[in-house]
């Protein structure tokens, strides 16, 4: 319409298209109902207007049929919208199995991203096009919310636990990153941009800016420094459970329940070890709450995840970071 005003945000992921189609559908339905009611109101107001205060309208008290019609029909329409949008909602929150992992922490008024290869970025994120990317993030102080308008996704960063969003960018270029949950004075300053790059350019960028070793290696170093390996021995002979092959499995707990070993459980066991002690072990692991920054916790979590198959641990994590597996269907 006007050169200055763009009516629709850029569409940089397949998911954005789904959200837009749903948006068009609801806009259409709403516009239809709005027009129908407005036309009727104006038509009746004009057709039956009078200036004689003593005039009296027709004795109409209502009609059950009409009432039922305009209660059931709108409800059915809303159910169609409900099912379609629930479908889109599930797509938004169901990451495919093979995704490029990126960790992030929201801190008052900046986003800090950590790539597996060890690269750290503030308020900027470089991602390859065409590959599903999953960002697992938390907040270090107050509520924040990671919002990519171009990908139509958003999730609150809640201190004390992990949140995660995923997307598959399918357009090159630079897109907005906003903080959408009010977090104080420079809430409007906690913005940045995501750079979607060709896979080749992405690799170049990755190798070009390698930071202090990969995340896994940093985790490994921390694992040693904090003497985790004294209890968590890989063959299970230590006082703590062996961590090899643990990620993704489910663990029997001393309290009787079972828990899926995912990033959240690993993080909680590092910071609140007594919360869910594994069956057959004593709750004697000290808490690291306050001793470890969120970044270090993520490095340790990444290291434990890399212990999936202890033999080719080193090469596997390298492989994941650089070549990456064949991209999942291009969602």
């Amino acid at each position, binding site marked *: 319409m006007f050169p200055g005003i763009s009516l629709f945000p850029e569409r940089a992921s397949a998911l954005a298209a789904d959200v837009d189609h749903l948006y068009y559908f609801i806009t259409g339905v709403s516009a239809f109902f709005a027009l129908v009611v407005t036309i009727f109101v104006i038509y009746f107001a004009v057709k039956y207007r009078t200036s004689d205060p003593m005039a009296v309208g027709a004795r109409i008290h209502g009609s059950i049929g009409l009432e039922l019609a305009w209660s059931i029909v709108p409800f059915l329409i809303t159910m169609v919208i409900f099912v379609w949008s629930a479908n889109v909602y599930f797509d938004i929150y169901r990451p495919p199995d093979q995704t490029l992992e990126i960790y992030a922490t929201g801190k008052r008024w900046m986003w800090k991203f950590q790539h597996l290869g060890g690269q750290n970025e503030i308020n900027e994120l470089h991602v390859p096009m065409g590959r599903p990317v999953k960002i697992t993030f938390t907040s270090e102080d107050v509520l924040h919310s990671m919002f990519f308008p171009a990908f139509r996704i958003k999730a609150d960063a809640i201190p004390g636990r992990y949140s995660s969003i995923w997307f598959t960018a399918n357009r090159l270029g630079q897109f907005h990153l906003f903080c959408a949950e009010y977090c104080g004075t420079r809430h409007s300053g906690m913005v940045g941009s995501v750079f979607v790059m060709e896979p080749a350019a992405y690799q170049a960028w990755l190798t070009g800016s390698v930071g202090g070793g990969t995340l896994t290696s940093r985790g490994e170093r921390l694992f040693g420094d904090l003497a985790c390996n004294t209890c968590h021995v890989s063959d299970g002979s230590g006082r703590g459970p062996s961590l090899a092959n643990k990620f993704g499995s489910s663990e029997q707990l001393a*309290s009787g329940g079972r828990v899926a070993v995912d990033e959240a459980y690993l993080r909680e066991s590092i910071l609140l070890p*007594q919360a869910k002690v594994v069956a057959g072990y004593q*709750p004697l692991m000290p*808490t690291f709450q306050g001793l470890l920054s969120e970044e270090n916790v993520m490095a340790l979590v990444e290291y434990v995840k890399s212990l999936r198959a202890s033999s080719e641990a080193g090469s596997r994590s390298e492989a994941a970071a650089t070549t990456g597996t064949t991209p999942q269907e291009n969602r």
Partner: protein
Amino acid sequence: MAEALTAHGDHGGPHAHHPALQHHFDTLDQQHEAATLGMWLFLITEVLFFGGLFLAYMLYRVWYPEAWAEGSYQLNLTLGAINTVVLIGSSLTMAFAVRAAQTGLRKATVGWLIATMLLGLTFLVIKYFEYAEKFEHHHVPGSNFSFPGPHGDQVQIYFSLYFLMTGLHATHMLIGFGLLSVIAWMAHKGRFSEQWSTPVEISGLYWHFVDIVWIFLFPLLYLVDRAHTPVG
């Protein structure tokens, strides 16, 4: 329900007007029903008011059963049980006070009301000793809270809820105490009779509600997982 209105003068009406009948009501019966309904509605707000805290309690009990158990062990069960008996007793004396007011026994009403107030006072004194013990053991949430063991932080949440719930309940006891002393004074002045004892009834409703809150607080706070630790 409302027969034809007598002369519209407010207070100069013929002698049929009971002194307690307010001008905008037609009969004492209508005024009594309105007052009772009003108090029940107020009690609904109190149910929801405490409901918010019960929600927080239920969530954290599901999340941190061990911390809830450890926190509950710190509470003195015998004092809690005595308090429960005291408060249910005060409900009984309150019921008798209402009954006495309804049957126009002025002296008995004042007597039972004072008994209710004394029992309420006993409850608050026992509560004071419990709180004092918490301050000694640094179990009061805030900067100098200390609790050994791995669940220290979650036990602080337990004690935050403990102090908020019992503190709010004690505040309601104090309000009830004030209310009852006013009603006892009015009863002493002979303001109530067989036709008009509604103020005693609705203050009875309020007092019984405060008792019901404690009936829930006692098992929820004191009796968490007592099976594994020594009683008392």
